């Protein structure tokens, strides 16, 4: 039995699944792509991978401790009064998760799709579009999580973590990364040129600056607040702040639900698009 499993042929492996629902889009092997990306990391991309992690750390040092000395403590309606560095740390954690997730799901996916013809190769094996979508998005999540954990490891010794609930910030960062990765890959799979990708990047900057990362949202007019509340980065920041400050409330579920929608919609559209592009 074991030798049968170990030496099963590609055909036997494929036939085992045939007839199951969704067998034409899912072979149950998103891990194969994650393993591929691990190899690529080891062989080609190690430096690039780790360079992305330092950016939010620089922000924390420059704004949190530089500007923070001038500002003193901050207080957002309904939240505790904390040092400026502690105020922006959860926001930068959310941004770390977002950056890590988007790095792979936008630029890398675009490159693989249009230049490396990577998905042509993958989709001519017995893998399906959902395997590919989950594998690639999953890898982006791993990157987002790695950035988030790295950031937490830097921040904790600085005394910016106030509650054991902050441990939950790690799975929460995973959810954030999953949402951004799914949406990022879905959008990227519809783009046809670099310029469009640059536009996506261009929109990320104002979202980063105005999503309440650097100052409390209650300074904004009511209408602007509603717009910002709809943005994914604000949802992520609000979720991570409440966990890192140890102030849990029902709104957390709302944030999780928000990202659940992103994940489902993102994975669905990515799968459909991959099918349409490579299995026309």
């Amino acid at each position, binding site marked *: 039995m074991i030798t049968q*499993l*170990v*030496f*099963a*042929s*590609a*055909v036997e*492996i*494929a*036939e085992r*699944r*045939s007839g199951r629902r969704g*067998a*034409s889009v899912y*072979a149950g*092997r998103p891990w*194969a*792509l994650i*393993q*591929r990306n691990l*190899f*690529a990391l080891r*062989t*080609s*991309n190690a430096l690039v991978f780790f360079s992305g992690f330092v950016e939010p750390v620089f922000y924390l040092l420059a704004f949190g401790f530089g500007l923070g000395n001038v500002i003193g403590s901050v207080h957002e309606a309904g939240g505790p009064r904390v040092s400026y560095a502690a105020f922006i740390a959860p926001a930068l954690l959310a941004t770390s998760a977002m950056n890590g997730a988007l790095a792979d799901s936008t630029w890398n996916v675009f490159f693989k799709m249009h230049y*490396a*013809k*990577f998905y*042509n*190769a*993958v*989709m*001519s*094996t*017995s*893998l*399906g579009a959902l395997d590919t979508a989950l594998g690639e998005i999953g890898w982006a999540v791993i990157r987002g999580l790695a950035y988030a954990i790295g950031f937490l490891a830097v921040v904790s010794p600085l005394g910016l973590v106030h509650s054991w609930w902050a441990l939950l910030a790690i799975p929460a960062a995973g959810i954030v990364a999953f949402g951004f990765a799914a949406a990022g890959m879905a959008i990227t799979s519809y783009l046809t040129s670099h310029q469009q990708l640059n536009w996506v990047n261009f929109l990320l900057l104002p979202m980063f600056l105005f999503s309440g990362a650097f100052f409390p949202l209650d300074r904004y007019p009511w209408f602007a607040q509603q717009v910002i509340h709809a943005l994914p980065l604000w949802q992520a920041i609000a979720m991570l702040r409440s966990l890192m400050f140890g102030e849990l409330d029902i709104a957390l579920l709302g944030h999780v639900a928000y990202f659940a929608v992103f994940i489902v919609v993102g994975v669905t559209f990515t799968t459909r698009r991959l099918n349409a592009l*490579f*299995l*026309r």
Partner: protein
Amino acid sequence: MIRASGLTKRYGEFTAVAGIDFAVARGESFGLLGPNGAGKSTTMRMISATTLRSGGDLRILDRDPDTHGPEVRAHLGVVPQEGNLDTELTCAENLYVYGRYFGLSRRFLRPKVDELLAFAQLEDKRDVKVDALSGGMKRRLTIARGLVNEPEILLLDEPTTGLDPQARHILWDRLFRLKEQGVTLVVTTHYMDEAEQLCDRLIVMDRGRIMAEGSPQTLISEYSSREVLELRYGTGRNAEVAAQLEGIGQRMEALPDRLLLYVDDGEAALEAVVGRGFHPIASLVRRSSLEDVFLRLTGRSLVDE
């Protein structure tokens, strides 16, 4: 192994493949010939279960590629025209990872990767990244990659385009070995010598239709003569002389740079030409080739993709 009837592919208004019928038997080496835009690559993509057909029927090992894509693809090895090796990985990693896509186990793949590197004559490039390989090496690695799942059918889309003669011959040698091992080969090409070398049987396609079908030898005897006499009288005189040579050989073609006479006996035909008083600047008697068949069937005008 492969059976197509009335196979059709339309992209909007454009019909890429217009209802073709063919069958490929086990162990056979089957060629798809045609100029650019003839529908070869589209046909290949339908066989490889990466493009849905718009009409007709197609069975690969009695399975419908449209509904059983992953199963059909597990039976196939695909060597695409465009290089899509994984440039971020080494040669060995390329083979290993591709095997993982099929779900093959580590214990199966370890010896398999060594075996395939040896087959592709790339043992010493094992840990080299793909970018550092020459064109011929990349193509051999792509073929090796296509074999990782031990396919019964190997699909090769213009396997030697862009390679130098040495690299082509090495590649043909590798493909012969596969054929000897009983792998069914399906090859698209627009190189006639390649088709004559590799294919037991072939179809000539043009504008999505099959123009002719048979072995290289039967196609030559059916659509061309045994020999071809090529005559050159200089660009200015070719057309004028052509009119005077009526009746020699089965068929004549007047090109701007030379005249082609399709004949059974080239030397005798040359004597007859000279006997009518037309001494050519240069002449050549050669065997008729698949290229003559190809040009007769698909015309000489330039095809843009």
